[in-house]
């Protein structure tokens, strides 16, 4: 019926969508989309290091992204620069360093397009293991920190005053962001990972009236995007990342119909 690589891509994509759904909601709620971008850009450096030292790609991306997040926090404390400038600085300089390093690695043939936009052919059985165990771990940790993270997203001072330790939750969430980028980079590509986080969540916002529903719809939207995207990628021979993101965009546009109706109802 389908080739093995396609089945692998499906299993990988669905696993990723299960994780990006809830995490994406927090990215939207906490306005972290540019932060996600920065971590994703730095992932290129992680990939080059993985090739240079023969490391696992997900692991090396996870380490570099976490490192970049740490540097960001330090810079925020020590400089007077606004957050978005620091994010831009880190995003583009880590991307640049990554590209320069690739230039030196002449002995390896790099599929740059695959790195930027994802490549379903690249997904191996080992990757599936990483995606599903890593994904399960991410979701478990997210569940454990849900209360403080959500409460501090709504209002930091309430969470802090009532003893929920929001700073710890925020730090752990940052690590989860790095982890989700690490497990999805091969599939979605580093330029489009943030899209996978944001677009299904944004779609879900349009049709939800409670946080739980938004998370649920975000997951469903992500799963549908992966299915639609991968099948069209197979059909039209397009890159997997852009195809998945386009499917998510279509779902988002459909969800706008719901907004128009509810606005009409209010008037």
């Amino acid at each position, binding site marked *: 019926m389908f080739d093995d690589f396609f089945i692998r891509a499906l299993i990988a994509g669905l696993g990723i969508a299960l994780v990006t759904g809830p995490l994406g909601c927090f990215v939207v*709620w906490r306005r972290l989309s540019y932060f996600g971008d920065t971590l994703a850009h730095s992932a290129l450096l992680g990939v080059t290091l993985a090739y240079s030292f023969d490391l696992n790609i997900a692991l090396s991306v996870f380490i570099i992204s976490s490192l970049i997040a740490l540097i960001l926090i330090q810079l925020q404390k020590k400089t007077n620069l606004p957050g978005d400038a620091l994010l831009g600085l880190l995003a583009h300089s880590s991307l640049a360093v990554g590209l320069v390093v690739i230039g030196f690695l002449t002995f390896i043939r790099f599929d740059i397009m695959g790195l930027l936009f994802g490549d379903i052919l690249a997904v191996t059985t080992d990757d599936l293991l990483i995606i599903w165990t890593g994904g399960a771990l991410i979701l478990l940790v997210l569940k454990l920190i849900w209360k403080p993270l959500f409460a501090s997203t709504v209002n930091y001072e309430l969470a802090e005053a009532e003893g929920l330790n929001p700073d710890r939750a925020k730090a752990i969430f940052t690590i989860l962001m790095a982890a989700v980028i690490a497990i999805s980079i091969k599939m979605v590509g580093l330029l489009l990972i943030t899209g996978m986080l944001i677009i299904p969540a944004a779609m879900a916002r349009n049709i939800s009236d409670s946080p739980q*529903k938004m998370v649920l719809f975000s997951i469903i939207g992500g799963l549908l995007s992966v299915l639609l995207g991968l099948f069209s990628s197979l059909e039209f021979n397009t890159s997997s990342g852009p195809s998945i993101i386009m499917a998510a965009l279509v779902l988002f546009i459909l969800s706008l119909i719901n907004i128009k109706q509810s606005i009409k109802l209010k008037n």
Partner: protein
Amino acid sequence: MSSENSTLVKLNNAGFKQNDKWLVEGVSLTVEKGKIVTLIGPNGSGKSTTAKIALGIYKNIEGSVEKYTNKVGYVPQKISIDWTLPLRVYDFMLLTENIKDEVIDEALTLTGVIHLKNKNLGNLSGGEFQRVLIARAISKKPELLVLDEPVQGVDYTGEIALYELIKRISDTLNCGILLISHDLHTVMTATDHVVCLNGHVCCSGSPMDVAKNNEYKTLFGEQASQILSVYEHKHDHVHSDKGEIKKN
């Protein structure tokens, strides 16, 4: 005699400095179980800052805070909630602790907003939202309740009813309350201990003591100290949230 065990939070010569400017300094106060401590003072006198110090929101403080409880309910003065979040009153009630449905309903009924339970938080009026904030804080059955201008934006009859409710909660839950209010009437009638702030502690003591204090008079005017003579009487009735009178 009050033992150390009844102390919920204790500030020792506490202060907080932001951008090299003292917001408040040298505050010492103790909130005990079943007692209401009220902070009064003009705008910018450090009332909210003192509350946040007591709650542990500010980290780099001068002096020290000893907090003996983790069951805290907080009604902040200003709350900015991001409406990118779809949040109903019901979700908000569960924000920091999982609370049983009956308890939520009871708290929302007490503050008169049970009919808003499934409404989106963003669509509430200022007064309605304030009632939800109070309901959320009391539904946790806290040991320490910190209320920063809890009845702002609430209509006049509601204001009285809510203050009666706060007093009742302090009695029934035996919790300590740190109250910030600029409604001197309430302060003088319902409070055990008043701390008058103006960047530092001007004076403190029982409502009677404070009202007689000269610094208090200069801050609030002669008029304010006479409030006591009007309000120093025993209540024999309470008001429900609809303004009806109930005999005690």
